C-alpha cells in the first residue's frame, strides 16, 4: 500500500480512497443501513481505446469475461453469486468497462477473490468466443437495429466526432463485430486489464479498513500489467462546419430531431465551465419547467416533447444534446427554428435568478437522493474516477454547483452552443416501397 487513506467529508458519509502497491485504487463508501455491499471494479479502458477496425471489442471482452478462468470454470462465479442471493452484471462505455456484484456483506472477500482471479486468469475457448459473438450481434439488433431513434444517435455521434474514437458506437459496427476473434479479445485483455488501471468501488456495510484488508489479500496479489500505457486518444480538431443529416426509416411513426454540440467534459473544461454547462442543460431542457418545454410544448405548442442534457463524464471532449418531437402538422424545420429561438434568447439575455436558484437546488438535491442508493453512489464514483475526476472533486459537487453564476451560464451558452460545433439530425419516415431482396 502506498498512500494513506484519505477520508473525504462532504454531504453524506466519509469516503475512503486507497491505493495498493500494484497500483489498484480502492474507494469505500460506507452505508450501514442493510447488511449488503455493492462491489464494482472499473477498468480504465473502453470502446474509445479500441484499435481502428476492431470496433465493439471492449464490449465483446466484457461478455467474454464471464467465460471462466483456469481456476474457476465457466459459470462458477455466477453460480456462487447466485447461491448467496447476489446480483451481478457488467457494462461498457467509451471510457470504462465495469463489473459488479451486490452481495451480503460477509461475501465481499469471496467476490473480490473471483474478480481478482479473472483480472489476469481468463481462459477462452474458440467455441465460447464464436457463440458469444452471435450474442453480441443479437444485442446490437436489440439495442440499435430494432430502434430507429438509437440508429439516429449512432449517426449523429459518427458525424460529430471527426477524429475522436467517440464517433464509433460502443457496441461496435456490425461488420467489424462479426469479424472479431479470440485473438483480438485475448490481445485486448492482455493489453488493458490489470490492477494498475483498475478502480474498485465498494459501497455498503463494510468498514474501510476491512475492505482494504480484503483487497490486499485478493487484488493485492495480482502483478501490475506493464503493457498498460496512458490513454492518449486522437483529439478533435476545432469544429468549423455545422453538420446536418437525415435518417429515413420505414418504421418511423413520429418524426424527431436531435442535436449534439461538441463541448468540454469535466476533465477537459476550464475551471467552472463544466458546472455551468450542467446548470445550462438543466435550465434549458430538464423537465417540464425548462425553457424548451415551456416555450415549445406549452406556449407555442409546436412540440410534444423537448429536452436537453449534458454529459460531463468523459475523458475527452463531450456532448451537449437536445431532443424535440414535433406536434402533428409541424415540420421539423419549423420546430428547429423555434428551438433555435429559445437558445438564442438564452445566449442573448442569459437566465433569470429564479431559474439559476431552482436548477442549483435541484442538482444539489439529486446528490442527496443519490446517497440513498449504494448502486447510484458506486456508479457515480466509478464513472467519475475513470474519466479524470478525483474523489475530492466528487465530494465537492454541491459546492461546485453552488458557485455557478448566471453570467457563467450565459457565457458557456454563447461559447459552446455554436452551430459550427454541432450536428443536427432528423429522423423521418421512409416512405419508399421496400426493395425485394432476391436470395
Amino acid at each position, binding site marked *: 500500500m502506498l498512500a494513506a487513506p484519505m477520508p473525504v467529508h462532504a454531504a453524506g458519509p466519509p469516503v475512503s480512497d486507497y491505493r495498493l502497491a500494484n497500483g489498484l485504487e480502492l474507494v469505500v463508501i460506507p*452505508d*450501514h*443501513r*442493510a*447488511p*449488503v455491499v455493492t462491489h464494482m471494479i472499473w477498468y480504465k479502458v473502453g470502446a474509445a481505446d479500441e484499435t481502428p477496425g476492431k470496433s465493439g471489442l471492449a464490449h465483446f471482452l466484457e461478455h467474454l469475461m*464471464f467465460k471462466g478462468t483456469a481456476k474457476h470454470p465457466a*459459470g462458477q462465479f*455466477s*453460480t456462487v453469486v*447466485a*447461491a*448467496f*442471493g*447476489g*446480483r*451481478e452484471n457488467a457494462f461498457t462505455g467509451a471510457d470504462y468497462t465495469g463489473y459488479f456484484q*451486490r452481495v*451480503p*456483506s*460477509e461475501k465481499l472477500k469471496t467476490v473480490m477473490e473471483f474478480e481478482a482471479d479473472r483480472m489476469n486468469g481468463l481462459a477462452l475457448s474458440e467455441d465460447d468466443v464464436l*457463440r458469444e*459473438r*452471435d*450474442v453480441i*450481434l*443479437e*444485442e446490437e*439488433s*436489440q439495442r440499435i*437495429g*430494432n*430502434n*430507429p431513434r438509437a440508429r439516429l444517435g449512432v449517426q449523429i455521434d459518427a458525424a460529430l466526432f471527426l477524429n475522436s474514437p467517440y464517433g464509433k458506437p460502443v457496441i461496435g459496427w456490425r461488420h467489424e463485430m462479426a469479424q472479431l476473434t479470440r485473438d483480438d479479445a485475448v490481445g485486448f485483455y492482455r493489453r488493458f486489464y490489470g490492477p494498475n488501471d483498475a478502480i474498485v468501488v465498494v459501497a455498503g456495510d463494510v468498514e474501510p479498513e476491512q475492505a482494504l484488508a480484503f483487497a490486499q489479500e485478493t487484488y493485492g496479489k495480482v502483478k501490475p500489467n506493464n503493457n498498460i500505457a496512458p490513454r492518449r486518444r486522437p483529439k478533435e480538431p476545432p469544429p468549423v462546419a455545422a453538420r446536418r443529416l437525415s435518417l429515413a426509416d*420505414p*418504421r*418511423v*411513426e*413520429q418524426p424527431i430531431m436531435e442535436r449534439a454540440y461538441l463541448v468540454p467534459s469535466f476533465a477537459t473544461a476550464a475551471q467552472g465551465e463544466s458546472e455551468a454547462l450542467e446548470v445550462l442543460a438543466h435550465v434549458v431542457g430538464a*423537465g*417540464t*419547467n425548462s425553457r424548451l418545454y*415551456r416555450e415549445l*410544448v*406549452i406556449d407555442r*405548442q409546436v412540440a*410534444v416533447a423537448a429536452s436537453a442534457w449534458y454529459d460531463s463524464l468523459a475523458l475527452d471532449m463531450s456532448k451537449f444534446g437536445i431532443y424535440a418531437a414535433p*406536434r*402533428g402538422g409541424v415540420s421539423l424545420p419549423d420546430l428547429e427554428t423555434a428551438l433555435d429561438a429559445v437558445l438564442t434568447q438564452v445566449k442573448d439575455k442569459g437566465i433569470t435568478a429564479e431559474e439559476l436558484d*431552482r436548477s442549483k*437546488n*435541484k442538482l444539489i*438535491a439529486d446528490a*442527496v*437522493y443519490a*446517497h*440513498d*442508493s449504494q*448502486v447510484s453512489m458506486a456508479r457515480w464514483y466509478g464513472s467519475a474516477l475513470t474519466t479524470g475526476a478525483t474523489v475530492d472533486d466528487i465530494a465537492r459537487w454541491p459546492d461546485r454547483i453552488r458557485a455557478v453564476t448566471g453570467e457563467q451560464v450565459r457565457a458557456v451558452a454563447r461559447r459552446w452552443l455554436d452551430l459550427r460545433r454541432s450536428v443536427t439530425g432528423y429522423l423521418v419516415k421512409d416512405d419508399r416501397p*421496400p426493395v425485394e431482396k432476391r436470395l
Partner: protein
Amino acid sequence: MIRLIAAVLAGLVAFVAAPASAMTIEPIVSPAGIKAWLVREHTVPLIAMSYAFLGGSAQDEPDKAGTSAFVADMLDEGAGDLDGKTFRDRLERHAIELNFGVTRDYFHGSLRTLREHGEEAFELLGLALSEPRFGLDAVERVRGQELAELRRELSNPNSLAGKNWWRAAFPDHPYGRETRGTPESVARIAADDLRNYARRVFARNGLVVTIVGDVDPEIAGRLIDRAFGALPAENALKPVPDAIPRGLGRRIVIELDVPQAVITFGGVGIARHDPDFMAAYVVNHILGGGGFTSRLYREVREKRGLVYGISDNLVWLRHAAIVIGSTATRADRTADTLEVIEHQLRRMAEHGPTEEELTAAKSYLKGAYALSFDTSSNIASQLTEIQIDDLGIDYIRRRQALIDAVTVADARRAAKRLFGGELLVTIAGKPKGLAAGRAHE
C-alpha cells in the same frame, strides 16, 4: 457439494433475517383514520412514500382505454388554485418528486422529498389528488404527447409482441385492453372522463400507503392526512370478472420489417394465494428467472448464442394469473429459438427441477430479497406490494420458511401446472421457417 451448500445456507439465515430486524415496520393510523406502514430511517434526510389506489386501467371505459394512464400524466398539470406552471415550479424549487403510474389493477404513486420540504410535498400531492384541474389546454397537450408515444410504439416490436399477447389472451376482458390505450381510444377521452375516473378511484377505502424516512408516527400521520385526508371515504369501482388466459396453442405473427423478431410467450399462471404459489415462484426462477443461471438463459443464450436476453415471470393480477416471457432473435433463427424454449418448458413440466437446482434457487431467492430493500423508495414500494398482496406485516420474516418448505414434489406439481399446458406465442418481426403443423396466423 451438499456440505458446501449447507454452510452457505447457515450463513444466510442471519443475513436475510437482518433486513427484517434492522427495519421495523410500524402500522400507524392517521388522525383522519387512514392506515399506513411506517419505516423510520434517519440516515438520509429524506422522506419516501409509496401508495396505491385499487382501480387501475381495468376501470377504463371499454371504448376509452388509456383513461387512467391519461390521468396519471395530468396530475402535475395544475390543481386547486395553482395552474400547471406554478404547481411544477413549486415541485422543482423544493426538489419534490411526484410520480404517478397505472397497472391493470392499481393506480400507483410515489413521492420523494427532502425532509425539510415534507409539508409542502404532501400538500401538493393532496391538491393533485383531490382537486386536479384537467384544464383543456393541458389535456390537449398531454393527449398530443400520448398519441406521439403510441404512434411510436406502432413500429416497436417489443410493444407489438407484448400488446398483442395480452389482447389475444384476454379478449372481451379489461385486462386485454392496452393500459395506455390506442391512438383511437385516446382520441376519444374527454376532460370529463378524466374527472370521472379520479372521482371514482381516488378514495380512502381502496388505498394502501407506506412511508419511509426521517419522520415519527405523529408527523407521518399528519403528512398522510395532508395528502389523502380530503378524499372521499368510498370509491365507486366497476366489478372486474375473473379470467383465465385464452388463445393457448396459438402463434400470432405481427409482420414488421425489423432485423430481429421479438417473441412473447406465456400461459396460465398461479394465483398469489394459491397453496402452490411459492413452489411455482421457485420453479419459474429455475426455468427463466433473471440472472445468469436459469435454464432458458443457459440453453438459449449460453449454449446456442441465439439471443441476448431471455427471461419469464409469474404475473399475478387480482382476477387472473399468468406466466409470461420474452426474448428476441434473428429472423432465420426464430423457429430454432422457439423450439428450444418449448422443449425446455416441456422438460420442466415433465420432470421438474433437480434437487440441486431447487436448493440453489431457494438460496438465491432468500438472499436476493434483501437487495430489493436497498433504498428508501424501494423499501416503500416493496412494502406497498406486500400490502396490496395482503401478505401481512410479518411477511418478510415468514418468507424464509415459506421458501424452505418447498419440496421437490411441490416443485414438480407446480412445474406441471405452470408449463404442462399449451402456450400463446406472439412474434413481431419477419420470422422465417416457423414449424409447420401448428396454428400459425
